[in-house]
């Protein structure tokens, strides 16, 4: 099972950051808006210039290309991007998506032909999650994955993501503004202070 090990990570005058997420472990990341949580995720996906060592299992980020690394560490951005007309066109092979995953977020196969322009924000978000998981990442970096979802849909998405993490023994970093959600999905938390300082937030519900 691959562990995510980050050391000496610096980017845009931030850092150094160092932490470790074990395979199958979900770590919550809290902090005020604008504290730099999304920036940290971007740096972890190697989307912004950075220095330091990032290691997932036995793969060092610097020994593979940027695209290869990004396939390994799946980053779900807060707002998903769509560039073609139909949903199915955004998947390498939509037929390979299993029915269960689609059903878990409230869709069936017919979603393949839906017009992207007619999707609601919540539908886009749920489909973005399906699209990310279809890539088979070995690690999940989730930027407010349920922010645009109602209570019911959020619960289903939580289940889907946690099950994926457990099945693949994938390390997960879960950004959320909802303490109750972080308590549900993670047993350990990090907090991004406004100065860009990453501190241990302790176990959920643990006063430490």
């Amino acid at each position, binding site marked *: 099972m691959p562990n995510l090990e980050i050391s000496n990570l610096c980017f845009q005058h931030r850092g150094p950051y160092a932490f470790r997420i074990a395979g199958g472990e979900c770590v919550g990341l809290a902090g005020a808006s604008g504290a730099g949580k999304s920036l940290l995720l971007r740096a972890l996906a190697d989307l912004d210039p950075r220095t330091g060592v990032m290691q997932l299992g036995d793969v060092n980020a610097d020994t593979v290309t940027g695209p*290869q690394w990004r396939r390994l560490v799946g980053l779900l*951005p807060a707002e998903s991007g*769509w560039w073609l007309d139909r949903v199915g066109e955004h998947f390498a092979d939509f037929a390979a998506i299993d029915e269960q995953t689609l059903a878990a977020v409230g869709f069936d196969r017919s979603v393949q032909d839906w017009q992207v322009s007619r999707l609601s924000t919540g539908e886009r978000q749920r489909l973005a999650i399906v699209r990310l998981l279809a890539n088979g990442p070995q690690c999940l970096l989730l930027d407010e994955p349920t922010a645009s979802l109602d209570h019911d849909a959020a619960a289903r998405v939580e289940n889907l993501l946690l099950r994926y993490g457990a099945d693949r023994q994938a390390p997960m970093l879960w950004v959320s503004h909802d303490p109750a959600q972080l308590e549900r999905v993670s047993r350990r938390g990090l907090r991004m202070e406004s100065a860009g300082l990453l501190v241990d937030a302790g176990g959920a519900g643990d006063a430490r």
Partner: protein
Amino acid sequence: MHVKPLTPADLALAASLLVLLGLLSWRLRLGLAKNLAIAAARTTVQLLLIGHILRLLFAHVHIVYMALISLVMLIAAGREVMARQQRRVSGLQGWLIGSGAMFLSSFTVTFLALTVVIGNEPWYAPQYAIPLLGMLLGNTMSGVAVAMDRMTETLWRERRVVEQRLLLGQTAAEAVGEIRRQAIRSGMTPIINSMATAGLVSLPGMMTGQILGGSSPMDAVQYQILIMFLICAGTGFGAIAAIRGVERRLFDGRHRLRLDALQTADEEQRP
């Protein structure tokens, strides 16, 4: 056959039209009167100046003079390409991308035309070389500027989608493919359109000039066809080279979109 020389009074008459237009634009508050005046003055001064320079060049044919004036033309075109972009690649590199692309395409195509097609002696005879290079540079400049502007502007506007594609593991080339194609197309469309309508809607400027100057229409037409082909080739190769350059600059080795390499037209340096 000789051209009827224009008197200063003839030009003054044409200029009075611009004055009228300026007055109208002032009344309509188009805010163009000042630009109009400056542009008209620049046309007059620059063309008079180049007239004198050409006269000198025609009198003293030497490859060094030709190289010098070509260089000046290229630098001016490079500046113009930069000025026409809303968001441009900052620093010397941005200038080099545009100028390099124009140098590659215009100079190569002009050289080819002068040596192989026209075959004058010497090949750099200014009567041929300067108008040819001027027309090629002028058109390539437009194409390169439009293509680069479109590329940087679209990447800026669509950065979320581009980064989403990168996040899904696409390479920079995959993530930017459609944007790149559109940018090159928009640079080439004007010349393709003007080839399609040449003669039907508009009589191209060079041909008009040649006919005014007393050439037979068929001679003028043949030169015009040559020029159109050269311009189209030059613009196409120039736009493709420039877009490659922009793409290389705006993505780094790790396939990251580096919009920090852009600066907007009104700020010299981004904070």
